[in-house]
């Protein structure tokens, strides 16, 4: 359960962001996914009250918004860490041992795939093919790609970002 004690000001800001985005993209039903993408880009994730506000602004039932949010892998309903580590589990990476890489991350971070560390620094997830198969196995941390990995590289990558916090 996420924290419910947000101040009215924060909520107001979230709703202002939604207002602005809906106005910019257009409130036609077919723009729902684009609106949600942009809202998530600004807020980091899509809490229930934001989903319900989007539903109101776009005249779509909340059930449909929730249906879309939970259907697509891109959307998060929980806050994500400052750094998102996406380990590629596409076939080319898998045959070159990316399964071992994600296991090592799970071990060192103490979280399962899809979870966020307690300090909110890292979210670990598996993704399917970044299209950088020439570098397999690869992973992506907030857009930066690391390639030709071995389980020994895992500690260094975590340390590099931990130091930056």
């Amino acid at each position, binding site marked *: 359960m996420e924290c419910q004690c947000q101040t009215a000001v924060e909520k107001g800001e979230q709703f202002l962001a939604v207002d602005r985005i809906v106005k910019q993209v257009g409130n036609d*039903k*077919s*723009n*729902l*996914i*684009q609106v*949600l*993408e942009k809202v998530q880009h600004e807020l980091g994730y899509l809490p229930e009250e934001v989903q319900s506000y989007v539903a109101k602004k776009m005249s779509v039932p909340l059930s*449909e918004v929730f*249906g*879309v949010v939970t*259907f*697509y*892998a*891109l*959307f998060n309903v929980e806050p994500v860490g400052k750094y998102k580590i996406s380990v590629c*589990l*596409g*076939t*080319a990476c*898998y*045959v*070159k041992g990316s399964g071992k890489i994600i296991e090592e991350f799970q071990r060192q971070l103490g979280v399962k795939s899809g979870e966020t560390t307690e300090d909110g620094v890292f979210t670990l997830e598996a*993704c*399917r*093919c*970044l*299209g*950088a*198969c*020439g*570098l*397999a196995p*690869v992973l992506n941390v907030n*857009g930066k*790609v690391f*390639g030709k990995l071995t*389980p020994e590289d895992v500690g260094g990558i975590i340390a590099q970002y931990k130091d930056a916090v």
Partner: protein
Amino acid sequence: MDFYRSHVLTCAGTGCTSMDSRLVRQGLHDELAKRGLDKEIKVLETGCFGFCNMGPIMVVYPEGTFYCQVQQQDITQIIEEHFIKGRPVERLLYKGQEAQATTEMENIEFFKHQERVVLSNCGKINPENIEEYIAEDGYFALAKCLDMTQEEVIDTVKKSGLRGRGGGGFPTGTKWDFAYKSQSDQKYVVCNADEGDPGAFMDRSVLEGDPHSVLEAMAIAGYAIGANKGYIYIRAEYPIAVERLGIAISQARELGLLGKDIFSKGFDFDIELRLGAGAFVCGEETGLLQSIEGKRGEPRPRPPFPAVAGLWTQPTLINNVETYANIPRIILRGADWFAGMGTEKSKGTKVFALAGKVNNIGLIEIPMGTTLRTIVYDIGGGIPKGKNFKAVQSGGPSGGCIPAEHLDVPIDYDSLMSIGSMMGSGGLIVMDEDNCMVDIAKFYMEFIQDESCGKCPPCRIGTKRMLEILTKITEGRGEPEDLDNLQILASNIKNTALCALGQTAPNPVLSTMKYFRDEYEAHIYEKKCPSKVCQALLSYVIDPEKCKGCGLCARNCPSDAISGKVKEPYSIDQSKCVKCGECMARCKFGAIDKK
């Protein structure tokens, strides 16, 4: 116009960008400017050359010198040696197996067997500059089509024999004809760029390297079927492709090549981008249409086909990126030219993403009918580290694994089907002796389970049951009847799933059961994994001959399973061992082995 004595083409595709080609390009640019050479030598960015594991790639013209794995620290040497003294930097040239450095791209084995039609502009033009596309006869095909009748355009596509490059291989011209014949005031043209097949990146490279070819083809399709609105549905995971498409669309609009009254022929056509949000099933055409409409991307039964009732129930033509990219070339060079390449029923070329356990990884384009042996051994340069070839997986989660006995089959749509796989979008993943085929089958089933939209029970529940059986087998709990059960489930899912993704989901299991049954049997009857992949079936043992008794393994064992006296051979208690492999990784004497 400025004249330069040299042009440096640097790859700005995803592979090379991931290897910091941007920094190399910027560094070269700055250094040339510092030395006052920037008026003589021009640094350009291009699309993908295809030779991804040799990146970052740089080609210097007019000589055509092909440099690979160029790093920032190499810049000074390239400038001093190549641009000032006029001799290539030997160290950065490609060295194949013959260990002889090759200067030109054409002489490299990886490129020699290729026939670049769809990829002809990739690695040649700057994808962010429409004028370079026009200089390569870009938008001439559209101009030509606007002087033809709609029927003539469709006829040309039909005669070329082009088939859908997205997987199914449906004749493209016939599809256009259906959409043309559907009566409606509003029709749509859609480009499927939701390349979700793991290990495939053909469409991404075309969009990154030659985005205008797709825009031009969509406009041609729009004219042919009578549509004036197009959508490109592209994965959000491809940020560079999305950016370049955006630039391309706005440049085409500026020059009036998209928009109202194109070429003053009274034809209107415009294109919008729609980003996918990470759902594999949206690659299925009816799922994709739902997603463009802003809904959950759940497929629906066909008929009606999209050509009759697609986007907002209007007639809609959907083709994939590579299919479109062929169109301008077919229009300009003629249907006969295209039909002259390939096999009897599969014309033209096909782009494949070659990856996995093969020396040369990258993007290749070959005439249909090329054998897998040529692809894996000549273009791909064989298997690394002298390992034995085991299989090639084609068609992604809908395809199958092709064993060594079929390496000489000329590949096209039909031959791949007949050996239990399929063309799919064009991912080719090479596997060697270290890959366990039961584990690979399980990997694909996990993928399908993750990505099943859940609408129809055969896919939602059936693949779950198959995954449970495969997990059981890899964990050493397999029973003899499991193989029969897998077979029964597979045939039920094939016959009853709602969409093509569900119907083809059992293929990786069926093909591995057909060609690698011995591996399944070894897991079930002998409780052994012949490739030593499935952890539960392995035991770690210490070779007393090699063990020096240093105790490093025992200190690092998380379950205290290793004991012994210093300077005497240690041993592993199998009942405590959790098979993490830490001891084997730590041992400095190679004394620990998996059995």
